[in-house]
């Protein structure tokens, strides 16, 4: 029963062959063989039937066992002793009941002299029942995680105000001076922060810190059109995480403002589940005008409130403890004159983002901390002065004579109870009173008896919201539709390819008239294609200048399109076709990024294996197969580097764009049909790819990749391009280049 060379299988071959058959005439022998085969098949069939019966019998047996167990359970529930003990069960809460039972049991064991053997037996049974990997080896090399003692409040004692409030607080903030103090280590997050900060009503002055001149320049560009107030961008040492920049570098500004917002460009790479932590905090504190207005209303009408922070992000809340920060915290507490009760339940603005009255931060500002007081940045996750200050913020607020309170967006809290709604102005006092907790006077608040079970996923509503935001699905129709030029660069394509590519592009241009309109631009890099397209096909055709290369060809088309007033240029490969809805989806995403992003379509049916974030849709580089380039990005980057004849020019453009603060996104709703599956590159293409790769490595200063590609080129018999004195990418840009994943230039998914 083996396939033939052609892979063809005939099932007749599967008939069992009977060996040592007696000699007989051909027909009789075959009949005999076949008859035996039938008999064998029928016998096997009977056996299989018997096996199926056996399986069925086992199933019946298990069903009976289950029925018996249910009967026993019911008998217990209806027994007299169970009913008698119901009073005790209801009278005593669960933990107390368990404690009483345990105490009685221990007392009985002591009285009967069986305590030690019992404890030994329990320990042995406990060890045996633990899964192998969770047992702690008794060696000094034990690396299993050790959780610090639980210090957070019980969930049932932990309240937060639900935001936004149930009415629209028409907050009068014109008399208040408000500042946002923002630390942005990752300058590419500037656009996201800008979007959130515009939700603050009235004037808002920005104080932004970053760690070098290059990042500062990107931030200046991002906030150049900030009209709600002043923008002060400062370069600070990369020390003390976001805390030192906010408390030390901007210590001079607090006195000038009534309220301050502390936020920073947090990226939590150390745990995937925390990837949306930043967005959660920003949504909770600045997610909409109504959210911010509610918080400001709280400050205005509750003068004792000094600080407003987000309720803990659910995937993080089982880590709410002192960690390794207690020694630092004790030192800090003694400086602040705070009696730190490390036995009392702890709470703090996890993530160190919050709104505050300036006065509520005065105690820590008065310490006049210096940057040198903070540890050198070592990439450590815990155990620094910055982490201790994060845990002390609420203590500081109380020390200043204020209360603090937590807030939450109910839609982003799937497993958090006690979100206190504030449906009306009149309900605010009661809601605040219910939600206030004082660290210095914990009262009857108890610590959690045990760590909470981990929440393994970010809230679904938050993921959906961030994704919708990234795709621009929540945007209104633009004031005027985008003028879109779809550019096709042909090279010896077939008529079928060109008819599809141009026809599909036109279809996509006409699909969402509120969002876009435009034309198809075409340039022949190979032979003249005008005969291949139907007469009367309306295209903007540029005169060919021969094969000038991919980047140069598209640059020509782009220059022409932008000079005619087009807003966006979309480069598409001639061997593909746009989905009718693709351009509209890409324009939405461009609008979501305020025309400042490079947007690639998703290649279809097999998308490019390089990774992209499934929620934010960020990607390390964008493919030129179907790429939308807004005018502003073209003007900033100059388009493709024409020294790349073919291949890698899109990677180079992507890295240059990222270095200049342009977000790169994959538009997962824009499909671009691209027939590249099962396509084996010819040797000439492999050589071309290597030559471009070599150029990329030289431009971006990666000698090891250069050496590797030179070897490949030599092996392929390709010509090694001579070293030229062409300009290299600036040194500060080189962190955006990724040569660690070969020609994928990014981690790949498969």
């Amino acid at each position: 029963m083996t396939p033939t060379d052609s892979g063809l299988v005939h099932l007749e071959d599967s008939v069992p062959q009977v060996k040592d058959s007696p000699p007989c005439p051909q027909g009789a022998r075959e009949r005999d063989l076949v008859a035996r085969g039938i008999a064998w098949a029928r016998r096997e069939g009977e056996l299989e039937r018997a096996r199926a019966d056996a399986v069925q019998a086992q199933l019946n047996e298990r069903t009976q066992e289950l029925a018996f167990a249910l009967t026993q359970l019911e008998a217990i529930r209806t027994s007299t002793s169970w009913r008698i003990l119901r009073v005790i069960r209801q009278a005593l809460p669960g933990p107390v009941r368990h404690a009483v039972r345990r105490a009685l049991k221990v007392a009985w064991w002591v009285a009967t002299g069986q305590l030690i053997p019992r404890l030994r037996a329990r320990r042995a049974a406990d060890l045996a029942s633990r899964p192998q990997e969770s047992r702690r080896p008794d060696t000094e090399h034990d690396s299993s995680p050790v959780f610090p003692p639980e210090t957070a409040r019980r969930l049932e004692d932990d309240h937060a105000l639900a935001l936004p409030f149930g009415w629209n607080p028409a907050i009068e903030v014109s008399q208040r001076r408000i500042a946002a103090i923002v630390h942005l280590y990752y300058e590419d997050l500037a656009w996201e922060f800008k979007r959130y900060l515009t939700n603050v009503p009235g004037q808002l002055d920005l104080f932004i810190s970053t760690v070098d001149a290059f990042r500062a320049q990107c931030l200046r560009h991002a906030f150049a059109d900030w009209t709600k107030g002043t923008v002060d961008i400062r370069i600070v040492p990369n020390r003390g995480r976001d805390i030192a920049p906010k408390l030390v570098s901007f210590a001079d500004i607090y006195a000038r403002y009534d309220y301050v917002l502390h936020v920073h460009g947090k990226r939590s790479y150390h745990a995937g589940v925390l990837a949306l932590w930043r967005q959660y905090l920003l949504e909770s504190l600045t997610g909409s005008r109504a959210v911010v207005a509610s918080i400001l209303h709280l400050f205005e009408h509750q003068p004792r409130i000094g600080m407003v922070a987000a309720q803990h992000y659910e995937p993080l809340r089982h880590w709410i403890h002192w960690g390794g920060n207690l020694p630092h915290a004790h030192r800090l507490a003694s400086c602040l004159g705070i009696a730190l009760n490390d036995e009392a339940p702890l709470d703090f603005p996890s993530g160190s983002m919050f709104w505050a009255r300036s006065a509520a931060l005065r105690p820590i500002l008065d310490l006049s901390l210096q940057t040198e007081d903070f540890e050198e940045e070592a990439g450590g996750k815990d155990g620094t002065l910055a982490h201790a200050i994060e845990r002390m913020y609420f203590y500081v607020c109380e020390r200043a004579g204020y209360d603090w309170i937590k807030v939450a967006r109910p839609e982003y809290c799937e497993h958090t109870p006690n979100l206190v709604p504030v449906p009306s102005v009149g309900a605010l006092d009661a809601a605040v009173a219910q939600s206030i907790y004082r660290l210095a006077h914990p009262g009857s608040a108890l610590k959690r008896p045990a760590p909470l079970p981990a929440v393994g996923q970010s809230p679904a509503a938050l993921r959906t919201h961030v994704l919708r935001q990234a795709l621009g699905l929540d945007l209104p129709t633009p004031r005027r539709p985008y003028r879109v030029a779809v550019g096709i660069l042909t090279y010896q394509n077939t008529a079928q390819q060109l008819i599809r590519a141009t026809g599909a592009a036109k279809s996509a241009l006409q699909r969402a008239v509120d969002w876009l309109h435009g034309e198809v631009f075409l340039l022949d890099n190979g032979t003249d294609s005008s005969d291949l397209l139907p007469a009367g096909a309306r295209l903007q055709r540029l005169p060919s200048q021969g094969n000038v290369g991919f980047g140069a060809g598209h640059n020509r088309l782009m220059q022409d399109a932008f000079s005619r007033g087009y807003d966006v240029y979309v480069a598409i490969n001639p061997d593909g076709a746009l989905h009718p809805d693709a351009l509209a989806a890409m324009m939405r995403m461009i609008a979501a990024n305020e025309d400042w992003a490079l947007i690639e379509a998703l290649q279809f049916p097999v998308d490019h294996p390089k990774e992209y974030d499934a929620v934010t849709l960020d990607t390390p580089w964008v493919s030129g197969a179907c790429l939308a380039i807004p005018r502003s990005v073209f003007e900033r980057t100059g388009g493709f580097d024409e020294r790349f004849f073919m291949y890698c020019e899109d990677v180079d453009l992507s890295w240059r764009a990222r270095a200049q603060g342009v977000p790169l996104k994959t538009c997962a709703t824009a499909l671009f049909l691209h027939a590249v599956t099962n396509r084996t590159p010819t040797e000439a293409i492999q050589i071309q790819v290597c030559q471009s790769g070599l150029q990329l490595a030289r431009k971006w200063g990666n000698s090891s990749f250069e050496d590797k590609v030179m070897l490949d080129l030599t092996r392929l018999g390709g010509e090694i391009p001579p070293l030229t004195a062409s300009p290299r990418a600036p040194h500060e840009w080189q962190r955006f280049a990724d040569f660690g994943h070969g020609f994928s230039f990014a981690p790949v998914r498969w």
Partner: protein
Amino acid sequence: MMNIPAKGPRPEQIDCLVYLPDQQDLPLLARTGFSLYGQFHRPLRMIVVANAAADVTARQVNSALASLTALPEPFELHVCLDDSIEPEHRQDNAFNAGIMQAKGPYIVLMNAGELLYPEACSRLLERLEATGAAMAFSAVRNMNAIWPGASSPCTVVPDFDMLARGEVRLNSGCLINRTRVSHGILRLDTSLPASVRGSDLALRVGAAAGIDFGASHLCLADRYPPDGSDAVDPAASQTSSFDQAAWTLARLQADALLLDRRMQRLDPQYSP
């Protein structure tokens, strides 16, 4: 009896039968439609098969795919609604109804959301023409997430051993020449457990006219678990022991039928 179409099929037309389980899956159907639009092969017809329980109308299907059928060189679209009411056999009844509606000599069975690579139909057709088999298989990628980009694929390479174990799936990556087999053979047997019906059909088609696994080295389709689960490991979708027993019975019955037919050819007096 060979299933020779009565009228009007264009030469080498491929009918792609796409099962739509529910109205909610119309966006997935549109993705499948776009992958069919991308096929190099023409003429191509997309037959959307759905059960009455899917609560979907032909108008809705046409509307969901209208933008694709307006593109240059589109595929032809046909909707086939099956009104059988057995809930556990909806998909296969719908496929059986769709098979009856097929006009072209070749058919592909797919679920909404599954994608064929642009060269899939052409490559499989080449195999059938080269080998004379009635059915050609390629490798497929099992994906665990359609949206967006979080999938980790697992490639499944079908071969005769998989068929013998009853683990072959017909959806995507398989082209059938329906002119080479009779109506009676070319239908999914709903008396069998659902997990082995595809293998049963493949076995019967193979018994009649041969199966080609020569394109198994090529991955030509992406397949998604219909239940939206994350099962990409073929081992995870293994059938239960009861299903396996039923499958073995079906396989042996197919063997017996095959042998009966040979006996009848040898001895007209033979009665099974």
